Structure formats: structure tokens, C-alpha cells
């Protein structure tokens, strides 16, 4: 498969604290990569480095064969191509659902409003929220907000979607409705890099699993190898912490 994103030896630190240490990763078109790891291991920072929300000290992020230069302002076009969904949804509270969906397509891509609206309706329909198109974010549940946030990112036709712990702030009964949307996206062949704590979901959606600890990729592999036959002690311990055995 064609390689769309390539991360080469990136290093990121805040002062003396190294958050990411020589991390490399290649992602092919249509691939779903799931990153897990203990809190504070650098996995969210890793995602934020990919779309330039965090500056990297060393290394390269290569999108579609072109090295991203954070010094230049081609970051905007990068962010159009790499969509991101946050843990805390971050819908714009002063705008209705429809306005949230249309803002970036109309202002950034200069798309025709009617045509963008038609697409927004279609996406809302798909995630079962068409009736909420004129609601404001505060009138939605967490799960509904997160579904809107996902399709808001999709409105920009991103080539890659970054999902940063998108169910971590949700009540347990709302997790599923959001993850089903993501599974659906995976099925249609969307390229995604997902950070999550939902291991069962990770196993279901991932083409490749990655375990980050202490700012380094400690282990990676197919979901089967990863969950059933972990190689490193650290991953074994991590996976074990999710089990409740007598």
C-alpha cells in the first residue's frame, strides 16, 4: 500500500523533560494505527506533533512525500489535510451544530455554502444526528458532541484523521455510539491514527498496534500479536493492568 505519512526520528521536549524520544512511524493509505500507553507517555503529544500543534525539536514529519516545515506557514494546508478530534470535543459553543460544521469548509476551503450544507446533512444523517442540526453544543450529550466533532473534521475531507482519546471524557454508555462511528470510518478505508484506552475497541479497529512508554515506541505489531503474544515485559505489564482476574 502507498505510504501517506512518515514520521522520522522525532524528538520533543519541554525544557529538560523529554516527551518524545526518537519516534518513527510509517502509515499507509487506509491504515488504522492505534496507539496505547500509560498516561503521560507522550502519545497525545505525538498526535499533536503530526499536525503542528506542537513543535518538534528534531526529526521530520513527511506527508505524501513532502517534508512539513513548521517554520513556513504551509502548516495551514497541512492541517486541512490532517483532521483532528479532541478528547473534550471542542465544538464552538456559540455556533449551532450546522454552523460548527460549515465554518472551516466555507472560510478555509471557500466552498459553496449550499453544497457544504448538503454534505453536512448527509454526514449528520449518517451519525444519526440530523435532527440536531440547529441545536447548540450545550444541548447535546457528550456522545452526540463527539459525533459532531468527528464529522466536523470529516467536512474538511482530511486524508488522515487523528483521534485523541475521543471517548475518555464520555460516560460509559455513550462510548459505544462514538466508537461505532469510528469503526464505520475504518471500514470505508479511512486512514486514522487513534490514541485510546479502550483496548477492546483498539483490537477491533486496528490494523497495527503501537505501545508507547516513556516517550519511545516500545512495541508494535498486528492486534493479534500485540494482545495475545506481547514480546516486551512493559507491554505485558500494561496489558495486565487492564485485566481483573481472581
Amino acid at each position, binding site marked *: 500500500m502507498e505510504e501517506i505519512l512518515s514520521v522520522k526520528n522525532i524528538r520533543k521536549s519541554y525544557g529538560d523533560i523529554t516527551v518524545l524520544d526518537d519516534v518513527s512511524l510509517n502509515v499507509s493509505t487506509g491504515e488504522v494505527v492505534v496507539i496505547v500507553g500509560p498516561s503521560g507517555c507522550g502519545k497525545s503529544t505525538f498526535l499533536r506533533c503530526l*499536525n503542528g*500543534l506542537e513543535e518538534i525539536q528534531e526529526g521530520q514529519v513527511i506527508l505524501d512525500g513532502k517534508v512539513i516545515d513548521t517554520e513556513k506557514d504551509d502548516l*495551514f*494546508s497541512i*492541517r*486541512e489535510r490532517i*483532521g*483532528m478530534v*479532541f478528547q*473534550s470535543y*471542542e465544538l*464552538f*459553543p*456559540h455556533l449551532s451544530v450546522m454552523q460548527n460544521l460549515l*465554518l*472551516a469548509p466555507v*472560510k*478555509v*476551503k471557500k466552498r459553496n455554502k449550499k453544497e457544504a450544507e448538503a454534505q453536512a446533512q448527509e454526514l449528520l444523517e449518517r451519525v444519526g444526528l440530523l435532527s440536531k442540526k440547529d441545536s*447548540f453544543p450545550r*444541548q447535546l450529550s457528550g456522545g452526540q458532541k463527539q459525533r459532531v466533532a468527528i464529522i*466536523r*473534521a470529516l467536512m*474538511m475531507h482530511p486524508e488522515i484523521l487523528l483521534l485523541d482519546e475521543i471517548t475518555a471524557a464520555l460516560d460509559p454508555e455513550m462510548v459505544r455510539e462514538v466508537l461505532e462511528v469510528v469503526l464505520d470510518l475504518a471500514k470505508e478505508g479511512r486512514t486514522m491514527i487513534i490514541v485510546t484506552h479502550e483496548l477492546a475497541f483498539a483490537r477491533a479497529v486496528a490494523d497495527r498496534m503501537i505501545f508507547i512508554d516513556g516517550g519511545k515506541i516500545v512495541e508494535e505489531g498486528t492486534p493479534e500479536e500485540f494482545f495475545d503474544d506481547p514480546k516486551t515485559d512493559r507491554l505485558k505489564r500494561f496489558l495486565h493492568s487492564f485485566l481483573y482476574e481472581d
Partner: protein
Amino acid sequence: MGFEVLLKGSNLIRLLEGLAVALKISLISVAISIVLGTILGVIMSMDNKVIKGITRVYLEIVRIMPQLVLLFIVYFGATKVMGINISAEASSVIVFSFWGIAEMSDLVRGALKGIPAIQYESGIALGLSPVQTNIYVIIPQVIRRLIPLSINLITRMIKTTSLIMMIGIVEVLKVGQQIIEANRNSSPNAAFGVFLTIFVLYFIACWPISRFSKYLERKWET
């Protein structure tokens, strides 16, 4: 009841003129406070240590010092010490702006700080430029937070103009006193009627403003 004095001569017109003086001074001060206070608030939210120190001292002075004392310092003090002659009206505008800028800047700073940084990132992550993110995402939210608070400040400033008669400005309260004094023998109850009228005048001046604020709050709540 003492209302009859209002109908004598041009008393009611004089009261209204007095109100106009009070409103003029407060509205000029409000306009200055909103513009300069907003600019200062934006500067304050940049977290520069030196600016933080200076503005904290400024805010504390404004909060601790009664407005009347400030009025006396500027009007009587400045004239004597610095030998400059500031008119009573100019002194009032200076003092009210000094107060208003401080309060407004603190409101703006609070509103800006209240918007989580990740809202900004969320706009950026969608491909909006920093300028677009500010225009479409951040500023509308800041304004919505700011309006009820700043309207509260505006009505407080209008009310507090009743102090300016202490430095000799003939505003509505002073006119009221003059009317009461002049009619002490013919209408001994004039105090009640006149002050009640002044109460109503202040209410008419401030009420629409606070209704407008309520309206906006409700409109934006949905």
C-alpha cells in the same frame, strides 16, 4: 407629596438637564473605559510580569480608593499642587475613566482567560488561520461573556455620577437640592417628590440598558 414643585417654572426641564449632564459625563467615561480597558485587558492577558505588576497596583488603587476621594484628589489636589486648572467636568471624566478602564480591563482579561486554549487549537486544527480563529471562534465567545459584565459596569458608572455634585457640577441631584431649597417654605414636602422623581429618572436611564443585557444573555443562551 411634594410633586407640585416640579410643575413650577422650568423645574422639570432643569431636572432633565441635570440628568443630561450626569449622563453625558458617564457616557464619555464609559466610551473611554470600554476602548482603553479592552486594549489594556488584551495586554494584561499576555502574561508579561512587568505589566502584570503595574496593572495589579493600578487595579488595587482603584478598588481601595473611594471614587469621591479620587474626585477630590484630581479636582482640588491637581489644581493646587500642579498648578493646572482642570474643569470639574474634565476631572469627573478623568476619574470615572480611571476607574472604568481598570474594571473593564480586568473583565476583558478574565473573559480571555476563561476561553480554554484548546478552543483556539481546535480552530487551528481545522485549518483556520490564527486570525480566522480569533475572528470566528475566540472573539465572539469573549464578547458573549463580556456583555453582561460590562453592562453591569456601565450602570454602576451612571449611578456613581451622583458624586460629581460634590465638586460643584450641577447635575440632576444638585438641581433637585436647589429646587428643594428654593421651595422650602411653599412646599415643605418637596424633598420626597423631587428625590422620588430623580429615582425614577435614574431608573429610566439604567433599566433599558440592563434589559438589553438580559435580552442578549437569553438570546445567546440557547
